[in-house]
């Protein structure tokens, strides 16, 4: 059984101002599965629905974001949870941080500026487990932090005394105190320089290798996915357009959008001018008909303008939604 099964998930931002209602279809028909012991990367341009998808998966969505339809089902081994129907209190007590923890985007500022780091650890541990022995808690927290390669002294510091990379690592350390089954990291390396990025990614990899759990890594940076992820899903305009093991995505992409993304990556020694993809991501309040990529696709056919391509599964768990790829190949 997969850890997480998502079936035809649709989540829209519905707003109504002065009687004019508007819906932004940020996630529009996503189906995917996450397995135990893997790092899954979600890639795509800004505003393609990555963070919205995460919010639904982690159960942290707030109005005006609403789930229209679909299923988000977890199997934690000991128990199963349907994220879209679970009672919020039960979610808080049994799932949050114990099974799923979520390192938000911009986690440089997720630490309370007026309290020491240790206080935040204390809050989280007290909420989900209780602190019967303060000394033991302190020792365990120091041990946890040390194992992640952070000096235990950081616990007695305030967030403003830490560098951006340190803060990001503290945020990840906070998210992993209970060794959750799923760690969701949204743009954990954005705004960090490459050297610090490497440290943060290595930390995520080490945590995953140690606890054999699942990491869902969201970033627009394909280089990060190439280094870290086991499988990669490419999102475009609220849908997953291609998904495959990392090797296959980078060596043999099938969707024209994936191809463009990968071709735009610089490689050492390559002096050719990179072709840019014309246009901008579509407005999700009024997405294009048919295949949502067709206005920007150099290979678009008549069929692409009217008919939405179905997801086709090729060999080696390679899935792609494009009219150029036919059932025959599968």
């Amino acid at each position: 059984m997969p850890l997480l099964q998502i079936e035809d998930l649709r989540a829209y931002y519905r707003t109504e101002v002065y009687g004019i209602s508007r819906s932004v279809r940020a996630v529009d028909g996503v189906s995917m599965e996450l397995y135990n012991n893997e790092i899954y990367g979600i890639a795509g341009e800004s505003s393609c629905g990555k963070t919205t998808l995460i919010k639904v998966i982690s159960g942290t969505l707030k109005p005006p974001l609403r789930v229209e339809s679909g299923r988000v089902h977890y199997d934690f081994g000991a128990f199963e949870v349907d994220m879209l129907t679970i009672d919020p209190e039960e979610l808080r007590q049994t799932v949050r941080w114990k099974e799923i923890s979520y390192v938000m985007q911009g986690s440089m500022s997720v630490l309370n500026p007026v309290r020491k780091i240790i206080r935040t650890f204390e809050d989280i541990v007290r909420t989900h487990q209780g602190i019967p022995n303060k000394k033991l808690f302190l020792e365990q927290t120091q041990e946890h932090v040390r194992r992640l390669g952070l000096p235990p002294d950081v616990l007695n510091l305030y967030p403003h005394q830490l560098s951006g990379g340190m803060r990001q690592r503290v945020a990840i350390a906070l998210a992993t105190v209970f060794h959750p089954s799923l760690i969701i990291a949204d743009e954990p390396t954005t705004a960090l320089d490459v050297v610090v990025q490497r440290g943060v990614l290595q930390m995520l990899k080490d945590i995953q290798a140690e606890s054999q759990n699942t990491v869902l890594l969201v970033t627009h940076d394909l280089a990060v996915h190439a280094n870290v992820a086991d499988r990669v899903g490419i999102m475009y305009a609220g849908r997953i357009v291609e998904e495959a093991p990392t090797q296959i995505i980078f060596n043999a992409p099938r969707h024209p959008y994936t191809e463009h993304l990968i071709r735009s990556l610089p490689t050492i020694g390559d002096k050719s001018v990179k072709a840019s993809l014309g246009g901008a991501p579509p407005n999700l309040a009024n997405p294009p008909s048919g295949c949502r990529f067709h206005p920007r696709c150099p290979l678009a056919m008549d069929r692409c303008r009217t008919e939405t391509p179905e997801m086709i599964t090729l060999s080696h768990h390679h899935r792609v939604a494009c009219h150029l790829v036919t059932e025959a190949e599968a």
Partner: protein
Amino acid sequence: MRKFVLNYLIPRIGQYFLVIFLGVTLTFIIPRLSPSDPVERQVSQLMMSGSHVSPEAIIAMREALTEMYGLSGSLWEQYLAFWGRLLKGDLGPSLSSFPTPVTQLLATAMPWTFGLLMTSIIISWIVGNILGALASYYEKNVAIQIVDVVSQAVRPIPYYIMALVLLAVFAYWIPIFPFSGAYPPGTRVEFSLSFILTVIRHSLLPLFSLVLIGIGGWFIGMKSLTSNIISEDYVVYAENAGLPKNRILSQYIIRNAMLPQITGLALQIGLIFSGALIMEVVFGYPGMGTLTFQAVMANDYTLIMGITLLSIVGVATIVLILDFIYPLFDPRVRIQ
């Protein structure tokens, strides 16, 4: 720690003395720019009263008055003498209630004002801030919405109208509170239970009026501060981590939102030293506001100078204390 004292505390103390020095100097200069001569005014008042005074006596009196007001010698000598007397705690005699020293008038008025205003500021600060934070965190709660509407409605009412309405309702139509004063006229001021109870009964209506207006201000301020803090990443993170709501409210939202409010509180406390003019006039309360009002009406400029100096020192001292304790609330100031 050493760095903190050198870079933070020492400059603040220096600033404090600089502000007081400038304040005292301005208090010295401004009355001397006035075209009226207090000595001549005093003398002519005496002569107008019709009594016969010999020219020698007038000259002697002029000299005595000039000496007493500190107006003898050059401006520079006067300034030094002014400081000399000030450091000895001598603010000169009051002109309107001659020869009572100004310091004595201030000492009589100050406790009344301080007791009443301090109580009202602290009550309204605590209540207003807690309600404000609750209002923006529990937006949908009906009780909170009612408090919100009431404070929005009370806030724009001018204070004197509110005070007069309260007097009319609770002292005239429903006479449960006395009309004016801090105690009934003719009562001896003493430390007895019955006297203290009388004072409390007299102060309830002014206190209520101040608290009502005060809460509205703090409430609205805190509500908007809180509504900004609520969308901060660290609050969203705490929510995602499943922390209990009351923990998020107290440790994540209020701890951060109250920082500007602490500054506001200190400034309000500083302003106590000049009294609450309108409140004291409306309720006939014998504090600094009434004293100021009388001093201005009677052209009693030694008293005005005394009140001004007390306010300057008061505000500066409170700001200094705030600077000292603020690092306890905001570590970003403490460790730089």
